């Protein structure tokens, strides 16, 4: 509960900070004017800064043009992506129908957009005689829930494997350590294309063991692919944390588990934030394997998105596709937004420079 509250607080703080940007910008301008007036900065100096900033802004605009373009397109449901009038749709045609479609008609939240409400069901099978059911909907939860389920499995399994592994690599010496680590490094990059490469082999293996169409196994699979890179990344991060903190804890009488909980985990936070994002993305974005292994009622968002892209016979339904993708990227954006500082510091490989 407190975790949720602190997350909300963090998010709120970020939003406030973000909202106050214009004000800070104003203050900055005021100060600059003051500095120029009092002769602390020359006009030339200020002009140079303005110019450089402009270059930065223009660069951003160019880089993000594709996203901007597609977002405007998502606001113009009902028109063709390409038309003879120009690149951007006529603002007069802007509407939210595409988003409406995603929320209330597509399978994003609920199958066929048929929203209901959650309901606690007492009794029923399973380990715990309690389950969350869904009432008021005829069709049941949609792709978002499948995605979240997969990502939860991936994150749980990934962290469970990566964190202790990285710790052991960073702090312990044991037999075959070097060999395994070397293997991991070699395999850091084989994951992505590999899954396409081994697609059919995978399918036949999975189907031989009866593991197809199983969200849990799929989540595990993504976690497996994320292990080498993230273990190695986290190990690199941990290498830069002085051992003396752990030793201090040990001398202070902390047991191994206490040391982990009280010292290692808090100190590794930025690194954990980074692998959180990477592992998340591993489970969130993949669709080729998901589509091959799952049957349609279990499709996660990524597959739905892909299907949307290939739905038309000769053309993609761009507006819906863009609206869908924007909503799809939203959770990642939020996670990233909250963890930005950590991610930036977690990715700076202290041992890498020079």
């Amino acid at each position: 509960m407190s975790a949720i509250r602190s997350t909300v607080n963090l998010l709120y703080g970020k939003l406030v900070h973000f909202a106050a940007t214009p004000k800070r910008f104003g203050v900055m301008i005021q100060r600059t004017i003051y500095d120029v007036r009092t002769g602390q900065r020359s006009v030339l100096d200020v002009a140079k800064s303005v110019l450089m900033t402009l270059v930065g802004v223009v660069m951003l605009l160019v880089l993000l043009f594709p996203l901007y373009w597609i977002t405007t397109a998502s606001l113009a449901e009902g028109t063709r992506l390409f038309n003879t009038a120009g690149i951007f749709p006529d603002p007069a045609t802007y509407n939210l129908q595409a988003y409406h479609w995603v929320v209330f008609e597509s399978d994003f939240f609920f199958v066929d957009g048929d929203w209901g409400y959650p309901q606690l069901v007492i009794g029923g099978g399973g380990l715990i005689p309690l389950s969350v059911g869904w009432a008021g909907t005829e069709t049941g939860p949609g792709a978002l829930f499948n995605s979240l389920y997969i990502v939860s499995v991936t994150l749980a399994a990934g962290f469970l494997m990566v964190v202790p592994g990285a710790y052991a690599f960073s702090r312990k010496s044991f037999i075959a350590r070097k060999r395994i680590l070397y293997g991991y490094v070699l395999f850091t990059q084989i994951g992505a294309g590999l899954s396409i490469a081994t697609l059919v082999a995978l399918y036949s293996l999975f189907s031989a063991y009866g593991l197809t169409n199983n969200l849990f196994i799929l989540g595990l699979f993504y976690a497996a692919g994320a292990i080498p890179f993230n273990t190695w990344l986290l190990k690199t991060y941990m290498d830069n944390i002085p051992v003396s903190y752990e030793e201090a804890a040990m001398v202070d009488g902390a047991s191994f588990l206490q040391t982990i909980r009280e010292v290692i985990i808090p100190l590794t936070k930025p690194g954990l934030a980074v692998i959180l994002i990477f592992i998340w993305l591993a489970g969130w974005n993949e669709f080729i394997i998901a589509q091959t292994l799952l049957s349609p009622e279990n499709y996660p968002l990524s597959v739905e998105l892909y299907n949307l892209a290939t739905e038309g016979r000769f053309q993609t339904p761009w507006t819906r596709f863009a609206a869908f993708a924007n909503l799809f990227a939203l959770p990642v954006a939020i996670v990233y937004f909250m963890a930005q500082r950590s991610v930036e510091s977690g990715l700076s490989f202290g041992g890498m420079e020079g």
Partner: protein
Amino acid sequence: MADVTLDGLRKEFDRGTIVAVDDIDLEIEDGEFVTVVGPSGCGKTTTLRMVAGLEEPTAGRVLFDGEDVTDIHAKDRPVAMVFQNYALYPHKTVLENMEFGLRMSTDMAKEERHERVREMAEMMGIEELLEDSPDELSGGQKQRVALGRAIVREPEVFLFDEPLSNLDAKLRTEMRAEIQKLQKEFDVTAMYVTHDQEEAMTMGDRLAILDGGKLQQVGEPTEVYENPVNEFVAGFIGSPSMNFLEVTVERDGSAVRLTNRDVGFEFELSQEYVTGHELADTTYTLGVRPENIDISERITGEETMTATVEVVEPIGSDNYVHLDVTPDFLARSDPSIRPEPDDEVGVDFREADIHLFHPETGKDVFLSEREIEAATP
């Protein structure tokens, strides 16, 4: 409060290719403050870590109050340690840092712990910092917190690994006195590692000098200063360093002279000395401390040798006079004696102040075997 015994302690790294600590025997009495000093890489930290339980000895034992603790895990030893870089947990406040040890090793209630920490903080003058996080603190404050954190647990043995080396000179002097005072106050056994011989001299009840993993000499500071058992100790202890000069033993009847023709050095030993010690006809290293060298601005012809002044460094209370006898040959003189560079001055010293080191063993030939025995356990 425990006495600590190191019994034939040895530590090898990398499958024995590096011998970091080489059969050290040392007994530290209850409540005693022993400083371990030596040049970088001599094995000080490794020794300390073995006492703390952070490193497993290759051979030998560590005993607390006669009880073998060699196989006991660090977390179960009654020791506290202050690390060189303080090792304050950056994500915890000062209060949390200080109560951490109590929380881990005792089952005190929270209020009680805070009480204890607050008392300690008051004593150390850091009570206003309790809510701050470590990176808001200055070096000295961090050091104080690290000390406080160690003491609050009331350990029986207190270990310090160069705790002051990151502080500037003024603060260092201040903290030194503070550590000593605290150690006396709590009457806890302490082992203090440093590579700074001045720190070692001023702080310890006794001094243990390490070199190349081997214990060279153990003794009270003045004892070590006055009677270093070998050339290494002689050169290491004392600042500015002892001056060394290669000399040859020349016999002229019963008279024995130490000479170095290159620099025009000639010193006749008294009969008393000659009979007291055995001198071979070989080259020895003569050592004499800067403060034992007398400089006379007028040359009388009586002096042991003459030398040319290179630089004079005034440090206020004294002057350091650099002479061209050997590189770094230094005399420490009264501020009133201020020869100019390139002046020729007379150089003299008393027979009692000189040391003669054997060219091979490095041992001081003027010390009896017995004396050396006593000083090197």
